[in-house]
C-alpha cells in the first residue's frame, strides 16, 4: 500500500450488538430470561487510503456509516476489526502526538464554551494544544481574515447566530494547524450563503495549509464544491471511490433536457419522460444515447426558445448508486 498515505484504512469493520425485543408485557418478561441479541454492522469492511493534502467527501444517507467511520478515524470509537492508520498512528490509542495533529468539527455541536466570548475559548485551546504565543497570534490573524471573524470574537457565543457560531467553531478547531481535518456534516442547518462561505473557506484553507480534509455530508452541494474525490457509503459498505465526475458518468443512464417553449400545451411524451412542465419550461428525461436525436427532433418540431442538456441532479445519481448497492 501507499506508504506516504496520510490515512490508510483496510477492511474496517464496526459491529454493534443490539438486544431485540418486541413490544408488549409478555415479550418484556421473556427478555428478562433470555436476551435475544443481533449484530448490526455499522461499517462492514471498507478500505481506502488518502494522500496528504487531499480533500475527500464521504457521501451517504443517514445511518450509512460515515459518521461511524469518521469517529474511528479520529480515535473516538474502537474498530471491531480491520487495520486503521492515520498519520502513522492507530487512532484508538489516542496518543497525544496523534491528537495534536488532528481536529474534529461537528455540525450542530459546539466545542465553544457557551457563555464566554469565542476569543476566550480560543485561549483555552491555545493552552490545551500548547501553541506558542507568536504562532497562535499569526494563525488567529489568518483565520480571522479568511473567515471574517473580526466583530464576532468579543461577543459571547450564545449571542451569535448559527452561521457565525459555526465560523468560530471552525476557527477554534484550526488554531493548532492540524494536518488532518475531520468534518462531520459541517454545513447542516446553515443558510445557503453561509454554506457557500464555509465551503469557500475550506477550499482556501486546504490550498494554503495543505491539510488533508475528510468531510462527511448528505448535502451533494458540499461535496460538489469541495471534493474532487468522493467515497460513497451505504449500509456500511463502500459503493464508489473515485472522482466525482466519474461517478456521474458511470451511474447515469439518462440526461436531462430542459426546454423553454411558449406554453405547456404540446404533448412531449413522445420525446422522452416528462418530469415537469411549468409555464412553458419543460424538463425531460432522456436515455443518454438518444440525447442527440431527441434534441434534434425537439428543435425541428417545436418553437423552442431555449434548450439545455444537463446531467441529472447528483442527488438522483446518488440514489441510483444506493439503489444499486442494496440490490
Amino acid at each position, binding site marked *: 500500500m501507499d506508504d506516504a498515505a496520510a490515512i490508510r484504512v483496510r477492511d474496517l469493520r464496526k459491529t454493534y450488538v443490539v438486544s431485540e425485543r418486541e413490544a408488549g408485557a409478555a415479550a418484556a418478561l421473556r427478555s428478562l430470561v433470555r436476551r435475544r441479541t443481533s449484530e448490526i454492522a455499522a461499517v462492514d469492511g471498507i478500505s481506502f487510503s488518502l494522500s496528504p493534502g487531499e480533500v475527500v467527501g464521504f457521501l451517504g444517507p443517514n445511518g450509512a456509516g460515515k459518521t461511524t467511520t469518521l469517529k474511528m478515524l479520529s480515535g473516538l470509537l474502537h474498530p471491531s476489526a480491520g487495520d486503521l492508520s492515520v498519520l502513522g498512528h492507530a487512532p*484508538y490509542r489516542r496518543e497525544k502526538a496523534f491528537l495534536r495533529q488532528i481536529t474534529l468539527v461537528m455540525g450542530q455541536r459546539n466545542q465553544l464554551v457557551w457563555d464566554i466570548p469565542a476569543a476566550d475559548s480560543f485561549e483555552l485551546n491555545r*493552552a490545551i*494544544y500548547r501553541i506558542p504565543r507568536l504562532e497562535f497570534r499569526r494563525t488567529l490573524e489568518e483565520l480571522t481574515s479568511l473567515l471574517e471573524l473580526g466583530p464576532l470574537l468579543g461577543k459571547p457565543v450564545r449571542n451569535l447566530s448559527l452561521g457565525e457560531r459555526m465560523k468560530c467553531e471552525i476557527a477554534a478547531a484550526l488554531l493548532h494547524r492540524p494536518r488532518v481535518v475531520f468534518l462531520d456534516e459541517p454545513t447542516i442547518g446553515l443558510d445557503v450563503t453561509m454554506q457557500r462561505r464555509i465551503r469557500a473557506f475550506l477550499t482556501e484553507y486546504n490550498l494554503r495549509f495543505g491539510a488533508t480534509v475528510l468531510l462527511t455530508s448528505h448535502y451533494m452541494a458540499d461535496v460538489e464544491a469541495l471534493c474532487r474525490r468522493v467515497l460513497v457509503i451505504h449500509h456500511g459498505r463502500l459503493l464508489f471511490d473515485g472522482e466525482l465526475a466519474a461517478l456521474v458518468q458511470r451511474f447515469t443512464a439518462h440526461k436531462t433536457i430542459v426546454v423553454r417553449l411558449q406554453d405547456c400545451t404540446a404533448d412531449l411524451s413522445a420525446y422522452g419522460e416528462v418530469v415537469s412542465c411549468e409555464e412553458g419550461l419543460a424538463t425531460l428525461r432522456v436515455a443518454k444515447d438518444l440525447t442527440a436525436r431527441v434534441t434534434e427532433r425537439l428543435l425541428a418540431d417545436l418553437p423552442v426558445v431555449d434548450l439545455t442538456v444537463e446531467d441529472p441532479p447528483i442527488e438522483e445519481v446518488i440514489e441510483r448508486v444506493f439503489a444499486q448497492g442494496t440490490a
Partner: protein
Amino acid sequence: MRYLRLLWTFFRVGVMGELAYRANFFAQLFESLLELGTAIAGLAVVFSYTSTLGGWTPDQVLALVGVFFLVGGAIRLMIQPSLEQLIESVRDGTLDFTLVKPEDAQLLSSIQRVEIWKLTDVGLGIGVLAFALVRLGARVGAPQAAGFAAALIAGGVIVYSFWMILATSAFWLVRVENILMVFQSMYEAGRWPVSIYPGWLRFALTFIVPVAFAVTLPAQALAGRLTWQVLAGSWVFAAALFTAARLFWRAGLRRYGGASA
C-alpha cells in the same frame, strides 16, 4: 507543573467571563450570607441549652461550620459544575470534543467549568474559620494546623473522587443528575459533627457519601481531636478512592468508545 498551569488558564477564563456580571456577585453574597446566618442561628439556639455538643464546644462547632462552607464552596466552584457538564456531554455527544484533544480527558472534564461567584462561600468559610480560630486561641498550634491542612487535602481528594465516580456512572446510567442531588441533601448533614450521629448514619456519612472526611475530620484536627492514625487512614482511603475513580473512568471511556470489554 503543567496541570496546574492548565487549571489556572481555565480558572482565569472562567473569571474573566463573569466579572462583567456584578449583580450575580451580590446575589450570591446575599444567598451565602443568609445560609451562613441560618447555620449560626441554629448553633445559637442549640448552644443556648448546652455547653457542649457530643464533646464539641461552641467554638469548635463554629470552626466546623467554617470548614463546611469552605469545602462546600470549593466543590460548587469547580468540581460540581464541571462534572455536571461532563454528565450532559456524555449524553449529547460533546464529550467527543474533549476526547479528541491532546490532554487527559479526565482532567479536562474536571476543570471545564468554573462558577466563580462561589468564591464568596469559600471566603465566608475562611472568615468564619479564622474567627473561630481566634476564639480557640492558644489551643491551636502548628501540629493542629498541619493536621488540618493534611485532613483538608485528603478530604478534598476523597470528595473529588467520589463525585468523579458518580459522574462516570453516566456512561452506564441515563439520569445521573438525580443522584447528584442526593449528595446535596446528605452533604447538609455535615454541618454538625459527624461523631454525634448513631453508628450506622456515621458510616453512611463517611463511606457512602464522604462528608465526614471533607468536613468533620479537618475540623477535628483544628480542635486537636484527630489522631494521626485516623489521619493516615484518611490518606490511604483518599489514595484508594482516587485510584478507583481513575480505573472506573477508564472503563467508562472504553464503554463510550465501544471497545470490546
